[in-house]
């Protein structure tokens, strides 16, 4: 296999993997911004393939397309940002599952399955005590050397 064909193959496969990972992210993640990032990742995958083809065909056309993809991505980002902030202002969450009002009228709403509360390993921050009262300081575990 000639190096140029091998290069093309490798790029296409990396592009396909990026596209697929973006797809999985878009489908499974529920944070709107992460979904957006995943969608951008799909665009990256496509761009990679285009650049590879551009090199393989020795033609700037593929790179031109990528330039326009970047322009479109910028538009998309602007609009998506506006939408995400607007939606966030409405619900106070970035959860896409909050927004399925466009479903058919007799369809059930999305119900979030309960998950176990994550046990926090973090210590609570010390709070200030009233004046004149000695603060209750919890023993702090230090992760630096005790003596310098």
């Amino acid at each position, binding site marked *: 296999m000639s190096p140029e064909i091998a290069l093309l193959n490798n790029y296409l496969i990396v592009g396909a993997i990026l596209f697929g990972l973006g*797809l999985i992210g*878009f*489908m*499974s993640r529920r944070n709107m911004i992460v979904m957006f990032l995943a969608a951008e990742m799909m665009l990256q995958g496509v761009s990679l393939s285009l650049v590879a083809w551009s090199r393989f065909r020795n033609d700037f056309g593929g790179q031109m397309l990528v330039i326009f993809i970047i322009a479109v991505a910028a538009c998309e980002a602007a609009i998506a940002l506006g939408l995400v902030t607007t939606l966030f202002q409405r619900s106070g969450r970035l959860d*896409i*599952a909050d927004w*399925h009002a466009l*479903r*058919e009228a007799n*369809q059930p709403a999305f119900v979030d399955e309960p998950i176990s509360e994550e046990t926090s390993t973090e210590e609570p921050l010390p709070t200030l005590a009233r004046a004149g009262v000695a603060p209750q300081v919890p023993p702090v575990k230090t992760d630096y050397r005790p003596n310098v």
Partner: protein
Amino acid sequence: MPEISQLLPLIPALPLAAAMLTAVLGPRLLRKQSHWPTVLALALSCTASLMLLCKVHREAGQEEYERSGYEKIVTLYTWANVDEAYESDLRLRSPEGTVVISQGRKPLENGRLRQQSPEGATVNSRRDDSNKDSLATAAPLGLYNSEVIPFQGFTSLANDCRPEGTKKQGATIKNFRIEIALRADPLTAVMLAVITFVSTLVAIYSIGYMHGDPGYWRFFSYISLFVFSMTMLVSASNFLLLYVFWEAVGLCSYLLIGFWCEKPAAAAAGMKAFLVNRIGDFGFALGIFLIWTTFGTLDFHDSTAMGVLGKMRLASPEPIVNGAVGTAICLLLLLGACGKSAQFPLHVWLPDAMEGPTPVSALIHAATMVTAGVYMLARCMPLFAASPFALHAVAVVGGLTALIGAVVAITQTDLKRILAYSTISHLGYMFLAMGAGTVLGVTAGMFHLVTHAFFKALLFLAAGSVMHAMGGVIDIRRFGGLRRIMPVTHWTFLIGGLAMVGMIPFAGFYSKDAILLAVAEKFSFGNHVDLVYQTLYWTTFGGIFLIAVYTFRPFLLTFYGKDTVIPPEAGHHAHESPLSMTGPLVILALGAAFLGLYLEKTGGLAEFLAGTPSVAYLNRYPLAPEPSHETLESLHSSIGRQSTVMVAAGILFTIFLYAGSRRRLADRLAGPMKRLGLYQLSFGKLFFDPLYRLFVVRPLELFAQACAWFDNRFIDGSVNLVGILPKLLGAALRPLQGGLIQFYALAMILGVLIFLGVLLL
């Protein structure tokens, strides 16, 4: 002095610019100053029109145009241009003699043209390309000078006569070409001058009249638009363009009648005008279609092919079209003219149109728009001249309308409505003149058109002035003796009234006598006696008496009387109108008083109009032998004497009926009339509206109801039936619409995978 090619586009362009400017800037920026663009543009346009008139007058006077008439075409833009667009195998189907020239069966007999034929042959040998070049060099501004036109006509003539073996037997390949072309000839120049002059005065008048109206800017925008459409209408150089602006004028009329669209009556009147006009326009459109299929062109002139009314075609001694097709065309065109010019039986819209603001009534429904029909008839006169039946139809319609208008006007109580019916009546007179089908008739009709524009605009504006002062009250029974508080209105109204009835030195006298003379000429000479014209002549001659009565009745009731009666609506601002309103009145009054005298004594108008190609055609090939000048003069003077007596009698009779304390005489006279039913007939407008309601509107409503029933039951039912199928399908697919984007993406990718799988495996 600018060229015609520069002046002519300027005349419509200025009002259009003003309309757009006012429409854009009016509501926000101009507001109370919205009249400025319109007034300025109209004034400039008027100046340009007058310059054009002078220019055309000077050029048309040259000897070379004497026989064939003068015309000049300015092509602004070629809308559509498809070479060899369609095949016409008309000659196979049409009765013989339909298109004579293009068959070239008879050699051209006209001496002048025969002299030119060698040139034509050379042009023919050079064929199209060189011909285009010569046109291009001759017309760098898109101006086809009329000198070039004969050659062009010859070429296309020769092309049409190419050996037919090269083509399908009997079929001609024709070019499809629509040009936005304006024309300048005496007829157009006169119309332009009248339209722009009256419009300018009306616009100035409107400054005072419409003052304080919430739609001030809208009004002026419409007015400008209307003037644009009207100027384009009269300067259009083909039937298509004429039709477009015919409709545009109708639209403006609709907008302006319904200007106070909050009033239900105004909205209904606008609708009525529009719908009644549709009937006429439908006929007009059919006429144009028929012209197209008959002639293969819609051009008036001769720039690219032999236009319908082009000089080339008119120069031929052959009748243009005769037989059934010609008559059909003429009758359809007449139907269109009837609609626009409010002729019987389509006259019903005009009185209702008085719901619009008074300047609109003055401008559109008296002076300019309604004359479009007359203009169109004058323009198409060569077509009519070929069909005696059509000429008779025109004359009969005109005479009948003149009489109907006069009869109805006598008993109306609404000042504006009286004037409206008088307009209908006068338009009838103009139609009658056109119906004569002679040079004398056409020029008389146009003469009356010009004078009528002045005195009718004057009367309407004076009526508007009265209405303005009376707080919108227009019923003549509710006020009287206004001459004391409105002297200017009173005097101008008097002048206008005298001009309308045709008192001797005023404008109406000369133009009306010219019409009577033209009709009388049709039966007074020659061998056979034309009974139609004779009847019409005596009917309309009697109508003069009615004119005098219906003109002076409202005048006396309004301005005379022992006490000054003012309706309560007027409040305490019953006073003379402001200068912006009285100024135009005075100017128009001057015109109404002296214009007729001037034009008659110089004889300029008739001579000038005779230089229009379509009128010149009538002159060259008269339908009947022309009487000698002396006999005509003696006939003229006798008609003048008789009509003056008639008018004087009418005026005196009216004064006798209404003036002073003897007013009861009129009431006493009304008693027997009522018993006879004549009064009701006149007061009820000859019951046209109920008749229309019974025979047109009701059946249509019933038909519409039947259609609606069918639509609701069968068509909707079948549609609903179709609708159930997607509903069922949707019920099956509905669970897929869960609203979650991820699910959609997943489904999409599933589809892509299946597609890929099929593709690869």
